[in-house]
């Protein structure tokens, strides 16, 4: 029986006037690469934040690396690489400052990997985060996250602010991590092609419910069907979305 890195059973999350997630069930096994896709407000960010234990939820069981997400200890957190949708690196620190901190916090910290990312992605390492562009900040976050060599990667819209070339470079690294080190990847995106390049499996979420959970091989037909059934698109539009 495969080891599950993410387990969600009957998860429901309600805000005051909105049900963000309803009866969500999913499992992600070790080494799997899963893409989460959905329209704006579908519940992707809420799901990822619940997995990280940022926000409480009403019903259900949520486990990450076998631990309840609401009680993640420092060791478990050290095995999770998380990148939020909004840039969250400290605006008053440089990439090198943060790297100096990380080497004491993360047992798997790999300085060489960070140097490689800095070179390959042309990141400015000695400027404060508030002084660099959005794209640079995003790359810095991803570089730091990948250099921690996490067991599982949770990425919320990781490609926001990146140009096409950088996006492809980041996708390549993600694929390498998954293939070489068996890193479990769970990431959300609006763009199907970004999901398709790395993910083995795709989950589509709509209005807080999972409406499709499929292996990538079987996806194309299902996606077309889903877009036609749930979103009311024409066949031509659905094909375009699939592309």
């Amino acid at each position, binding site marked *: 029986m495969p080891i599950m890195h993410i387990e969600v059973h009957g998860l429901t999350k309600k805000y005051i006037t909105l049900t963000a997630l309803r009866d969500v069930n999913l499992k992600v096994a070790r080494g799997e690469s899963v893409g989460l896709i959905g329209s704006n407000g579908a519940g992707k960010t809420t799901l990822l934040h619940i997995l990280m234990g940022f926000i409480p939820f009403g019903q259900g069981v949520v486990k990450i690396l076998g631990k309840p997400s609401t009680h993640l200890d420092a060791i478990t957190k050290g095995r999770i690489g998380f990148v939020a949708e909004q840039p969250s*690196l400290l605006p008053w620190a440089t990439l090198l*400052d943060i790297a100096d901190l990380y080497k004491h916090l993360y047992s798997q910290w790999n300085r060489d990997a960070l140097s490689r990312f800095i070179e390959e992605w042309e990141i400015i390492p000695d400027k404060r985060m508030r002084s660099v562009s959005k794209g640079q900040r995003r790359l810095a976050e991803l570089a730091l996250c990948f250099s921690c060599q996490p067991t599982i990667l949770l990425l919320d819209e990781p490609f926001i602010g990146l140009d096409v070339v950088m996006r492809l470079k980041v996708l390549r690294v993600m694929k390498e991590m998954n293939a070489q080190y068996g890193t479990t990847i769970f990431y959300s995106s609006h763009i199907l092609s970004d999901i398709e390049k790395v993910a083995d499996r795709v989950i589509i979420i709509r209005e807080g419910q999972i409406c499709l959970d499929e292996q990538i091989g079987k996806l194309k037909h299902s996606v077309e069907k889903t877009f036609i059934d749930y979103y009311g698109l024409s066949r031509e539009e659905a094909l375009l979305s699939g592309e």
Partner: protein
Amino acid sequence: MQRSERKNALSSLVWFFLKTFLFNPQNNPTFLVIFILIIFFYLERSLNRYHIALMLYLAVLAHYFVGNIFKDSGNAEEETSRVPIIRYFQVLPISGRKIYLSYLLATGIYGLFTWAVLGFLLATFMKLPDLKNIEFIKSVAPDGDTITILTGFGLNERGIPGFVSIPLKKSLIFDPISKISGNYIWLSLLYILVFIYICTFQVFNQFNQRSYPYLLKLFHKLPLWIYLCIGFGFLTELMFSQKQIGICTRFIIQHLGLLTSLLLVTIIATSISIGLMSRFILDRLKLIS
């Protein structure tokens, strides 16, 4: 993680706060102000009411910037928000309690340094022979109430980072109780700062009497200060989230005893350390015979 590694993580986080923010002139302009102040004093070679006012302002400013440490000051077009910064600390593999502790240690070191510089400046220039208006200084030095209000204004705008609430409520930052817990810490820190200001100024008020400062005499205003601080914190909470008035009130009432006892312990420790430090500085400068 082993015990030594955990300690290492804590000290590295303290160092990180000090190096990247508190002692970094690019991020904390207080140092620039201190530098200007030193030059100013050298040129003037005197101490008058304006200098006292300047120092007070500097003290408030110093803690204002420290308070803003976790406020996101990104590019102008971006929405200012602390939430991503709080998230950032929640992701780190170190408990919220340790993050809070390291923040306190870092700001404590920073605060001591700031006050040592200010104390040194005051003590140095007070022995100058042309300084004859010491009685005047005594009369203009602000009393406890004034400093409380001034400090309150200085720390008003989101003074203390929200992540301090993490150790108190399992990092659930959207939980209203957790937000109030943040204010609970906020209040205690505010009160400590106020007390430090008062002690320092009262200490220097007593210089001309050549007597050892009786810091404990200051305690007669203690209840007033506590009420002022709680009132101010409550008012801030009122302004920022009106929906939570009821919860805030309940929390304050439930924890008033704990709050007061915690504050008392902290204040006594602070006053003893400030008294000893002042005595040491004055002895070194031979201002006390």
